[in-house]
Each structure stands twice: as structure tokens, then as C-alpha cells.
């Protein structure tokens, strides 16, 4: 989607290995979000950021960490990937928390084998 890109688009990794997903925006939005999407669950918030170096946990944050060293980049790290983290991961950006529509990236399909 325009203004937000995720990389990689697809990744297969082995259990126990670290994995980092990247979200890059060119819109200068303050808020950035990481969601995972699994069948029957909709989108669940993992972590979000409200500024450089300002992050907070979402509802399913266990096993994940994030970093935001620049306004435009928000990284999601799986320190030691597990099969339960096989999912599609979406990054989103927004102007204000709970007040404006989000723009979503195209997603990263992660498979942990």
C-alpha cells in the first residue's frame, strides 16, 4: 500500500531461530502497529509505537519485541521463533490512537517449521 511497506513478504524459518520483520513508512505518522492475523481470530495487536523509542504491548505480545529508532521504521522481532508464531503479520500506521483510520501494509507471511 502507498506509503507503507513491509519486508520480507514471505519467510520460512526454523523453530528457535530469531526473526525480524520490518515496517517502513513514508507518511510521517506518529503511531505504528504490529498485528498478527490467524483464521477465526481476526487481527490481534502485538505491539504498537507512539513515537521514536516509545512502544507498548498489545494483547498478544509474549515472544515478541519491537524497536523504533526512527519515525519511519518499526521492527518486530521474534527472539526464538515457535510454530505457534506461524501467521500473517501486518503493520499499520495511523495519526491518532483510536481516532483515525489506519493504513495497512501488504503483510508478511511467516512460517515456522
Amino acid at each position, binding site marked *: *500500500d502507498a506509503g507503507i511497506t513491509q519486508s520480507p513478504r514471505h519467510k520460512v524459518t526454523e523453530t528457535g531461530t530469531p526473526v525480524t520483520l520490518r515496517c517502513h513508512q513514508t507518511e510521517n505518522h506518529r503511531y505504528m502497529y504490529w498485528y498478527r492475523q490467524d483464521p477465526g481470530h*481476526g487481527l490481534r495487536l502485538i505491539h504498537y509505537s507512539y513515537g521514536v523509542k516509545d512502544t507498548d504491548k*498489545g494483547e498478544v505480545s509474549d515472544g515478541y519485541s519491537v524497536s523504533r529508532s526512527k519515525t519511519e521504521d518499526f521492527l518486530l522481532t521474534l527472539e526464538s521463533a515457535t510454530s505457534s508464531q506461524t501467521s500473517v503479520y501486518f503493520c499499520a500506521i495511523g495519526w491518532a*490512537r*483510536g*481516532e*483515525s483510520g489506519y493504513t*495497512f501494509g*501488504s*503483510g508478511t507471511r511467516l512460517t515456522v517449521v
Partner: protein
Amino acid sequence: SQQGEEDPQALSIQEGENATMNCSYKTSINNLQWYRQNSGRGLVHLILIRSNEREKHSGRLRVTLDTSKKSSSLLITASRAADTASYFCATAHYGQNFVFGPGTRLSVLP
């Protein structure tokens, strides 16, 4: 839970018909949004409706919000095959993050 629940889970209609999807939630909210997701793609924002609004329109889309019933509906008029997608509602209390429901899968048959 604040999470909205869409209903029905799946809906199949013929091209040209109207499609109605509903979202119900349990606690009071400040804002509610609807999104569309085509297969294999990210979510696309459709409409945001605030708790003091009752109806909003965007092209062939109409969203209503009934805070007394804690429910919202998304109406797509004169549906097209290209409207085939999953539709999600997301709700938020003031100053909090949006929480997404599990979605409705809409199939529009030619």
C-alpha cells in the same frame, strides 16, 4: 470485551444485490471503523463513524451506528464481483487502540 463481532461469518449474494453485515460490541465505544480485506492483501479503511454519528455514506457504502443497541451495520448496495472480500469492524474507546472483530467473508457471485 470491547471487541466487535461481525455477523454473519459468511455471506453469499448475487451481483447487483445488496449486502448487509452487522457488528455488535459489548461496551460503550468512541469510534467504530469498517475495513475491507481482499484475499492475500492488507486491510483497506472504508469508513470511520463516531459515537455521536448515526449514519455515514461513501459511494455505495452506508454505515449506521446504534449506540443504544451497541451495533453497527455496513450496507453495500448494488454489489459487484470486485466486492468479494472479508469485512472487519474495529471499535475503540476514547484514547485506546482499535480492536478488530473476526470478520465477515462476502462472496459476490456473477
